[in-house]
Structure formats: structure tokens, C-alpha cells
């Protein structure tokens, strides 16, 4: 390496030369560092994309609600409100028992139904039906609903969430999947 004439002591920086060639080297290192930084930035962006996509995946909601059979109509006689369970159509491989889902089916009269989510409209605890007083009661904060799902007492801001239903080949089907929530409010 060329030893420039105007060496003006630069202890500690480790350069062997000095003067203008030292400045050139410093400038080159500065440029290299910036270039490296740019490469890192591009690499970081490229590797961040799948990470962001992975983490935000659940919001993209690829799994939709589906029609699920609750069983033969005979299970839901007119005038009665019955407990029904189904396997959630939105499934993940490691769900275990947690995809088992419950709901309440009320048969108003032949061919007319109401299917209520098990989740209290207050904070989602499972409501229970009491045939004798014709009330749904929530064990958490005492939310109470009438037979038709409308709010009777307690903290819930609205009535019970309802599923859409249809009858096909003698069976009752509901449009189920997603945990019910404020989106279902009209």
C-alpha cells in the first residue's frame, strides 16, 4: 500500500497509510457499510414478509362458516328448547375436544326454529336453559334471557346471538363456525 507523504497520526484506527489515501479508505469503508446496510435492509424486508404474513394469518380468515347438521327434526319437538352439540366446521389439526360446540335449539312451532349460541352476549360464558322458568341464565354475571333469546335482566347489552338455520332432508342445519361476536349484531 502506498505510504502518503502527509501522514497525520491516526492512532488506533489501524490504518497503515495516511493523508488522502487514508481518507479514501475511510470513505470506502463508509460506503461499504452503507451498502451492507442497504443489503441488510432488503434482506430484512424479504424475510419479514413471510413472518408478518404468518403472524397475521388468522386475520385473513381463510376458513368460512359452513352449514352443519344438528340432527333429525324429531330431536327438536315444537314448544321445546333443547341442547344440541356439533363439531365446529372450522378445524385445526390439534383442536382436540375444543372444537365440540354447543347451542340451544328452540322449536317455536313445526318448521319454525331459533338456534341460539351457547355464549352469553355479555362476556361469552355458557348460558344454561331452565325449562321451568323459561329463562336462559349465565353463571358468570347473571345475565338472563327469555325463551326467544331477548335480554331479560343482567349486564348483557343485547339478546343471545342466533345462528341462521335451514331444514334439509328432515334435518336441522345451522350456519356455524366463527365464535359469535359483535359482528353479528345488527
Amino acid at each position, binding site marked *: 500500500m502506498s505510504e502518503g507523504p502527509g501522514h497525520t497520526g491516526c492512532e488506533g484506527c489501524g490504518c497503515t497509510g495516511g493523508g488522502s489515501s487514508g481518507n479514501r479508505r475511510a470513505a470506502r469503508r463508509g460506503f461499504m457499510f452503507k451498502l451492507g446496510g442497504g443489503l441488510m435492509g432488503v434482506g430484512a424486508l424479504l424475510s419479514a414478509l413471510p413472518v408478518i404474513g404468518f403472524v397475521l394469518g388468522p386475520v385473513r380468515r381463510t376458513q368460512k362458516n359452513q352449514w352443519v347438521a344438528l340432527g333429525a327434526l324429531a330431536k327438536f319437538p315444537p314448544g321445546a328448547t333443547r341442547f344440541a352439540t356439533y363439531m365446529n366446521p*372450522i378445524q385445526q389439526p390439534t*383442536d*382436540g375436544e375444543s372444537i365440540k360446540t354447543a347451542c340451544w335449539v328452540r322449536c317455536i312451532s313445526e318448521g319454525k326454529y331459533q338456534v341460539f349460541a351457547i355464549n352469553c352476549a355479555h362476556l361469552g360464558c355458557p348460558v*344454561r336453559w331452565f325449562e*321451568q322458568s323459561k329463562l336462559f341464565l349465565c353463571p*358468570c354475571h347473571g345475565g338472563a334471557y327469555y325463551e326467544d333469546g331477548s335480554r331479560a*335482566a343482567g349486564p348483557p347489552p343485547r339478546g343471545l346471538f342466533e345462528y341462521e338455520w335451514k331444514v334439509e332432508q328432515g334435518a336441522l342445519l345451522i350456519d356455524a363456525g366463527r*365464535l359469535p*361476536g359483535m359482528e353479528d349484531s345488527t
Partner: protein
Amino acid sequence: MRFLAGALAWLESRSGLGAFIKPLMSHHVPRSATWWYVFGSATLMFFVIQVVTGVCLGTMYAPSAAEAWQSLRYIDKEVPAGWMIRALHGWSSNAMVVMMAIHMLQVFLHASYKYPRELNWITGVCLLLVVLALAFTGQVMRWDQDAYWGLGIGASITDRIPVFGSQIRDLLLGGPIIGGETLNRFYALHVFILPGAAIALVGLHMALIMRHGISEMPRPGAPVRPASYKKEYEERMARDGVPFHPDASQRDMIFCGVCLIALVVVAAIYGPFGPGGEPDPTLIDTNPRPDYPFMWLFGAVSLLPPASETFVMLVTPGVIVLALFLVPFLGNAGERAPSRRPVMVLAAAFAVIAIASLTWEGLASRWSPVMNGWSALPTPAQFVRGRTPLEMQGAVVFQFAQCRNCHALGGSGGQRGPALDDVATRFTPEQLTRQVQQGGGNMPAYGKNLSRAQMDAIVGFLSTLTPSYETPAAIPGAMLPLPISSAEPAPR
């Protein structure tokens, strides 16, 4: 011996570990720093217990919604000492939250957060949030019915966030349902992200202690003056300070030792937390309850007026956290002694009383109906003795219409509504009829659900509920119009 000394000297020359640790042990602390100063060390000790027992559990726990509950049962029942490891992990987590709260209260009351220790306080608040998040995600790890429905409550609260509520909820749950990905998400938080954050923050917290030194006990009339504080503090430490080890460390050691023995005793006697009922959401005969650190929140959410609920649930936590972060900036100079800071002492007292009473309310949870009150609690005999057949029939209707789920008789039953032992001294038969029929005052209307005959019977029964020494309620001048006093909207 010489070999050992040589080996140590070699290790020191290559690692410099001793040179790193020595100032940690020998740095001067104020002579006045005595038993008030042990709570931070105890919090750290419980955190170490959490890491050790947590890693142990990590070798056995199956982080899968299909197997987590079974693996915990296996750890409890089959693995040698497994139940004790779980008990230590559970009780130590509660102890860590309590110790941290006491430590924070001490720092707040003594204004140790003032100049130059503002960042000590802020890293401490971050640690508080991380530890509470660890406690919540730890409850999810049990993957029992409390965990499932607790997540449901969290999801319902998140869902109420305006505009993006349901997206944020899905992000939290790892999908549109509480399922396999939910547990794994919380597992990643509980085992990787939050402990990592806690370790980093503890390191920073300790580095800041070394940088600024431990604050002295506050003295009235000795205000903090930022311009000269550091210089004066260092002079005082050089003149009057004592080395951390052994002058202060002895107290830390004794207190931590007592805490550790207490932890082991409590864990051995009371055992592990859960797991409760298996995580099958179709088993709805459940009564979800949060863990102790969140009992006060459960109480607060339950006692809020419904109209203000969404606003309070979403805004208050943010306001509280912001206020905690702002504490050192609202006054980082001046007096530190509690006697000269009455407003701050009152604020601390308010916080303690609020959290304690809300925890008490949460544990009692009088707002929760007794779901099997109607079928499990017999009508006390004194309320049916000597009654007419109609009144006795009324007692039957009262029982089977689930009235006991919310109303106590003879001291047993729900406490959501008032106890009815002496209801007839407060309500005339006409008022009773109106109340049962139309409801109101947070009671459902039973008009549609009871026949005329049932209504007559139940009112007949309720009209007999007076203590022997009191007369039934009556409207002077008899048949006046019935009062309409309910603020509740009329039932549909």
C-alpha cells in the same frame, strides 16, 4: 487447593467474571436501606423459581389443545414430584405478583422513582405488565374449562374494540374459534416471548440500580434537587454508605429464605392449581373463575353499570397503564417523604383499597346466580310450617321456577337478588304480583312464564314471609293504585 486456586485464577483471567461481579456485591448502599428494601429481591427469587419449575414443566407438558389437559393430569398423578413442581409454579406465580405489588407500593410511597431513577420505575412498570401477562397466559396453559371460558371472556372484551375488534380477536385467538392454534399462540407467549422480555427487563432494571445506586430512606425536609442530587448522593455513599454485601444482602437472604420456605410449605399443603374440568365446551355445567391476580378485574367488570361497561373495559386499562408510566414525570424532584406527599399516599391507599375490595367482591361473586340453587337447596322447613295448601304449592313453584338461584331463603341461595326471608314486610301482595309479573330492578318478568294459578300460589307463599314479630306490609287505606317504581324498561 493450589490447583483449584490456579484454575480459578485462569477462569478469572479469561472471563473477567469476578471483575464483573465484584462491584455488584461491594457497591455502597445507604445505611438507611433496611427491611423496606427486600421486596425486589424476593420478586426476583420467585421469578427464578418460575424459570426453573417452568423449564421442568416444559419437559413434560404437551402444548397441544388435544393433549395439554391430559399431560397435566399425567404430571400431577404419574410423574414423580410432578404435582409439587406444578404447585411450586402456581403458588410462586401468585407470590411473584404479590411481592411485585408490595415492591412497587414501597417505591411509590418512598418516591424512589424521582430523579435520577425515572427509568427504574418505567422498566418496573414494564415488568409488571409482563408478569401479569405471564399470569394470564399461564392460566391458559392449564387448558381446562376455566382456561377455555376465560379465553372466551378475553375474546368478548377484545371483540368490543371499535372497528377492528373482530380482527384483533382473531389475531389473539389464532383464528375464528378457541382451538388448537389458540393454545399454541399463548404457549409461545408464555414460554418464549414473555420470559425473554422479563429477563431482558430484569437485566435492565438491575443495570439501572447499579448506575444510579439504591435510594435512601426518605427524610422529610430532604428534597431531591436534580441539579446537585447525583454529586451529593455519591458523596454521602462514599462517606456513610455500607457495602451491599454483606450489610444489605444479609436481609435479602433472610427474607428470601423465609419466603422460599413459606412457598414450599404452601405448595406442599395446598397443591397445584387444577387442571379443572376437561376442556370440552359442550360441558356447560361450569362456573368459570379467573385466577387470583385477575379477581379484582372480574369484580370490576361485574359491578360496572352495563351502559358504561364497554367504555370502561376498553379505556380504563390504558389510562391506568399510562398513569403508571407518567408517575415519575408528574414530579421527579422535591420531597420524597410520605408525610410531605399526602395526595400520593391517598392515591396509593385508594389503589390498595380498590383492588382489595374488588378482589373480595370477585371471590364472593354475589352477582353470580347459584345455578343449582333450585334443585340442590331444600326450602327451609320454617318457611312451609303451618302454611295453607295454596301457600305450600307456592313454595313448590318458588323452588321450581329457579327463584332460589338468585334469592336466598334462610341464608341459602343466590345473592343476586335480595334475600326474601321477610319480603312480605316490604311488599304488599299486589306489589309482589307486580314484581313477579313485570320484573324490573334487574329481575326478569315472569308474567309469560307462570300460569295464573302458579302466580296466585307464589304470591300467597311470598306473602307469608315475615318474621313472627313483624306485620305484613299493607297499603294504608287499602286499594290504592300500585306504585310503579321500576326504572327498568317494560319487558317485551
